[in-house]
């Protein structure tokens, strides 16, 4: 089992401990069930309809910009690792500059479209 195997073991044991923490109350806690126990909590008002309805589109637009950025930042991490090696010299800086310039256009575009200022 390598270091990565250990990490997966930690994750698995984390799940097991979480389940254990939920099993204990179900053994010792009271089990009351009345007419209102299972109602959705909405400050005492009866629930109207489901919560799974149409939602503001602005959230979706943020998700789109995020995908564009996050994937590009992942490419930048390997670049940052070898950035200081002498064989690359100033070429490395120029390439990072061009890359970030194109990336910034995503913000400029979203800004012009009014996504960031939350106009609808």
């Amino acid at each position, binding site marked *: 089992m390598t270091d990565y195997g*250990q990490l997966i073991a930690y994750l698995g044991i984390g799940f097991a401990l979480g389940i254990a923490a939920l099993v204990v109350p179900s053994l010792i806690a009271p089990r009351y069930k009345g007419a209102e126990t299972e109602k959705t909590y909405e400050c005492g008002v009866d629930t109207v309809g489901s919560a799974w309805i149409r939602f503001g589109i602005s959230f979706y637009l943020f998700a789109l910009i995020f995908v564009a950025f996050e994937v590009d930042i992942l490419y930048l991490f390997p670049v940052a690792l070898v950035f*200081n090696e002498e064989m690359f010299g100033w070429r490395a800086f120029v390439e990072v500059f061009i890359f970030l310039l194109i990336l910034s256009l995503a913000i400029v575009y979203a800004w012009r479209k009014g996504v960031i200022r939350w106009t609808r």
Partner: protein
Amino acid sequence: MPRTLLDIFGNPFIATGVGIGAVMTVLSINVLFCIWFERKVSAWIQRRLGPMEVGPQGTLQTVADMVKLLGKQLLTPAGIDKPLYHLAPLIIFAPVVASASLLPFSKSVALSDLNIGLILVFMFGGFAVVGIFMAGWGSNNKYALLGAMRSVAQNISYEVPLLLSALSVVLMVGAQGGGQIEIGDEVIQLNGLNLSHITLAQTSGLWFIVFQPIAAVIFFIAILAETNRAPFDLPEAESELIAGFHTEYSGMRFGLFFFGEYSNMFIGAMLATVLFLGGWDGPLLPGPVWFFFKSYLLIFVMMWVRWTFPRLRFDQLMAFCWAVLTPLAIVNILVTAFALKVVNG
């Protein structure tokens, strides 16, 4: 270089057992302490006494609360999406354990020493977003859904300046001492994504907060937003959304969310310590003391901020991220890259 538990014990099963024991002990003590500490800090700021009844100065209050939570009935509302609802607390809780094991707290011992530690910590941090959305969507409650939507939008947005400010540190690491460092008779090739190498790069010179003050501030603000702390606590804004995404969770399920939240805060503070404050580096006292002292100092600042600043409006929050922090972080990377090329020729 820190020796890992695997090097010390040889047997991977013993190493994992000891590691998980250590991580759970530290995380549990941290959560118990932080909740008490937060209540005391808020009381101090508002000129109250805070918890005083259970134990000296109310120190055992959180233990009493935990016992109470264990004895509470787990209410399951009708009309939920069952798999999502039941899995959500676990998805938030489990990655915290793995993530905490990655951080290098001492010069001599570490739980694990991975070459992509930084990326892995961010990856496990990303799990929280999935868990929050599962909780909010699965509850079939309008407040929970609103809270979850806000939380996801906020978390993914602030992830961008968070990663960009960490990136400028990764750039710096490879340039320290020509990318190599000597410890005793060993020469180590510095790797910018290995958390103990990031600390080592700072022990030989100045801490990165001196070279990267802007990145440090951006990182700290982004950590506040990622952990849903005030002034960025819109997902759980109690005055408008009851409790946000965990409105429908009671008893120990709520306890797991709380555990995850305070542990994430702790991991965020530890990561900021490693990246900008030199990790275990410090005079006189042993490394782990310095490491945890710096982390808790950052946690104190987080609490101070929470009880000082009012909550932002949601559009202000998103505009602040995309129109201020992200462009600033990009410019910071460019300046860093330029300066490194000028200095190193």
